[in-house]
């Protein structure tokens, strides 16, 4: 038994890792997307355990509410036509797996070696949503504006990239009509 860790943490981390593993191993793409949602929910629960309520709820809103839905829509839009996939894994999957295992071993080694052994279990920080809003509007206002521009540009760009066919067809019909 790992002492010092709560049962809630162990359950949540097991749920998170199980969801990620299912996303890695399942054949059906929709199942992968749904287990990805489980992982996102588990990470949101971990944020809540870290007293980061705002980040946890943002995680639920953004990832479960938007990114997971986007992934499911992309999967539904991109299958049907095309070659059915006989193999879900690439030909060099063994090398990829070895690289991932090596990265995990390195990270886990670094974490267990470098952190101090004393439990730095500080009291929960008194952070309210109001203080986050004040910080966003005062000392972090420049990053906030830049992120606003990045989001606008990225979403407009995504829409433009995702539908070039309609534009080409329209310009062709206009040229055809001019002739």
């Amino acid at each position, binding site marked *: 038994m790992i002492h010092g860790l709560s049962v809630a*943490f162990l359950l949540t981390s097991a749920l998170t890792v199980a969801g990620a593993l299912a996303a890695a191993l399942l054949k059906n793409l929709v199942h992968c997307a749904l287990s990805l949602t489980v992982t996102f929910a588990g*990470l949101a629960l971990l944020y809540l355990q870290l007293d980061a309520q705002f*980040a946890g709820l943002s995680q639920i809103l953004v990832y479960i509410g938007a990114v997971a839905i986007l992934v499911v829509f992309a999967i539904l839009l991109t299958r049907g036509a095309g070659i059915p*996939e006989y193999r*879900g894994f690439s030909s060099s999957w063994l090398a990829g797996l070895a690289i991932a295992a090596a990265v995990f071993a390195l990270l886990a080694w670094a974490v267990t070696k470098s952190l101090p052994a004393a439990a730095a279990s*500080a009291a929960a920080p008194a*952070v309210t949503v109001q203080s986050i809003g004040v910080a966003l509007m005062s000392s972090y206002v420049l990053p906030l504006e830049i992120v606003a521009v990045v*989001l606008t540009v990225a979403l407009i760009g995504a829409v433009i990239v995702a539908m070039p066919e309609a534009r080409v067809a329209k310009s062709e019909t206009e040229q055809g009509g001019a002739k």
Partner: protein
Amino acid sequence: MTPLAAFLVVAALVFAIGLAIALTRRNAILVLIGIELMLNAANLNLIAFWRFGAKPEALTGMMFAIFSIAVAAAEAAVGLGLVIAYHRHAKTTDLDAMTRMKG
């Protein structure tokens, strides 16, 4: 094992699984899923260091994580838009078949 180390190990595990997905799967959407998992693991690291680090009232790690969530959402939108555009063009999302992107 301290709580901070436990959270960091979980984040490392999620990162490694995301990296394995991105390196071994053949579907482009699944590779994007792996990238999302890696970004989420980084966010968990940021929040854990914010919680157990010095001066959490300064909100540095929390802000970093929130901005990272916003940028990751933009990245997902652009990446999936690119995959849909490629699929419309070449009728495949298989990465082994994606040998050229020029029309």
